[in-house]
């Protein structure tokens, strides 16, 4: 009796896991399979017949290709560099310098990153960017991304920097290094795994966003891929599923590559040197 109960429990457990896996896995599977299918539906199907024509057609759409390789890259890389650089420096300062009220500032940061949501801020953001004369520029979009992502990035980075014992830097100071040198030789290499997390995260946020570039950009030649994907819709508004899928797969690849690269190059963490 007990044994049967146990088996039933096991079974329920695996069924639950299967459902969860299907929930997350099937859309991914669809994304990988559909682009190679000549006639696709919204169901997950083995490509029949198998074809690369969809990619051919997508690559012939210069508007969509430019959106992906140029506009998206500029916006995402710009946001990534800005967020990572500023977040690292400010988090380091917040963690290491004895600034009165620095912990309150950190809590305000969490507040701003969670309470002021994107949609509610759209009108003021548009007005600010308009008054700055940055409407329909990459810079305007990048600045808004940096501003929006920084609070959370600084908060995450500060936590990360706090986790690094100060004695590393202190021992470098005593060894004779000037503070700037301590930062470059000792602090920066130790913070780097955290910087990589922020970099990937901000890249992905900017890469996949739709609303901000949609509002701030006007000219088709500056639109990112999230908007350009609508060029695979017919004029009646129905999507060409195979082309949308092919374009989406291309759209997803850089993020996957970036993740794999960072994981391979920096993803491992250093341990040791500090005895706990």
């Amino acid at each position, binding site marked *: 009796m007990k044994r049967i109960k146990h088996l039933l429990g096991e079974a329920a457990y695996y069924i639950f896991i299967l459902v969860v896996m299907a929930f997350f896995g099937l859309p991914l599977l669809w994304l990988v399979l559909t682009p190679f299918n000549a006639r696709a539906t919204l169901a997950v199907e083995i490509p029949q017949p198998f074809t690369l024509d969809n990619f051919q057609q997508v690559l012939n759409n210069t508007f969509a290709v430019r959106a992906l390789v140029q506009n998206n890259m500029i916006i995402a890389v710009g946001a990534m560099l800005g967020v990572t650089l500023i977040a690292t420096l400010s988090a380091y300062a917040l963690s290491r310098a004895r600034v009165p009220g620095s912990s309150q500032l950190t809590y305000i940061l969490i507040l701003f990153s969670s309470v002021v949501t994107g949609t509610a801020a759209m009108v003021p953001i548009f007005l600010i960017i308009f008054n700055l004369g940055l409407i329909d520029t990459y810079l305007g979009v990048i600045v808004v991304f940096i501003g929006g992502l920084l609070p959370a990035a600084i908060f995450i980075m500060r936590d990360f920097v706090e986790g690094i*014992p100060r*004695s*590393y830097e*202190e*021992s*470098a*100071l*005593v*060894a*004779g*290094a*000037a503070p700037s*040198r301590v930062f470059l*030789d*000792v602090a920066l*290499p*130790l913070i780097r795994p955290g910087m990589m997390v922020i970099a990937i995260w901000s890249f992905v946020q900017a890469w996949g966003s739709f609303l901000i570039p949609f509002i701030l950009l006007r000219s088709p030649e500056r639109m990112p891929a999230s908007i350009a994907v609508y060029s695979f819709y017919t004029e009646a508004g129905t999507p060409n599923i195979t082309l949308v899928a092919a374009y989406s797969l291309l759209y997803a690849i850089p993020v996957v590559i970036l993740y794999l690269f960072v994981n391979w190059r920096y993803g491992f963490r*250093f*341990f*040791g*040197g*500090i*005895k*706990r």
Partner: protein
Amino acid sequence: MSGIQLDRLSKHFGSVAAVDEVTLQIQDGEFFALLGPSGCGKTTTLRMIAGLEKATAGTIKIGDRDVTTLAPRERDIAMVFQDYALYPHMNLLDNIGYPLKVRGIPRAELQQRVTEAAQSLGIDHLLNRRPAQLSGGQQQRAAVARAIVHHAQVFLFDEPLSNLDAKLRVEARGFLKHLQRQVGVTTVYVTHDQAEAMALADHIAIMEQGKVVQMGPPLEVYHRPRTTFVASFLGSPPMNLLRGQLDLAARQVRVNNAAISLEQFRGWDRLVEHAQQNVNVVMGIRPEHLTIAQHEIPQSLTGEVYAIQPLGAESLVIVQIKGEPVSVRLFTDDTPQFSGRVWLAPDLQRVFFYHPDGELIA
């Protein structure tokens, strides 16, 4: 090479005085230990010498130079941290050579000097390993190598052995003292382990609540603790402290209803001078200065045997006298055979009397 002088050095964190007017003279080339419980201000004092904390008041001199306001890198010091702080992203060669690298020493000379320092500590075969690939003892040696490599004027040690296991700690104690004697560099060593301080230092300063309560050669401090705090901090087990009452007229002290005659007490004159009739006192006696017997002996206290701990060369007998444990050290090869009621007689040449507030009377 040079001595260190601290003059009324203080550090306040808000309204708390972590270090309170500490004045110390550390001689050129000596091994000096700052000893005290956690939170007594010893590490803060060391960090002020290193320049990692700003002094609130007072001055620090290294040699003839007033370094009170100088940055750490201008003080010509080397420091070993409790957690070693070896840089995890560098191999041992770069770790040990870092002080040379920031001084702009050419790579070839750097390698040679690092190898020499590593050789003297027996870790020269590990130079291309990362800290994570080393054992605790090896990391500790690497941290020491990094401190000796640039021939600083002063070595600062912040509890460098507290993360090692007991066996390694005793071993490391030996090589630290040997090394310090070899290079002859003025060394300040912070520890909360009284055995370490006694074993290593030429002079120790014992700190309590930001103040130095006693300073001197280890054995002098051990044999004549100036306060009950020092008495209870030095020695393992520390000095037994028993509350009692002086009866000057009868020339005796009453401890737990036992009266011990002070005819033989070495400090009788001072006691008469500084204490009043029937005053409360604390009697201090080291575990090795008590005689234990299974039968009644004159001038003795009585209690019940609580536990017997054979330690090899010596044994400890813990006796409970009115609920208070009293340790007795016996230098015997056999396990002592005591049980039940026993009598303890203090060596009156070795007894101390303290005021209830802790100050030594005689």
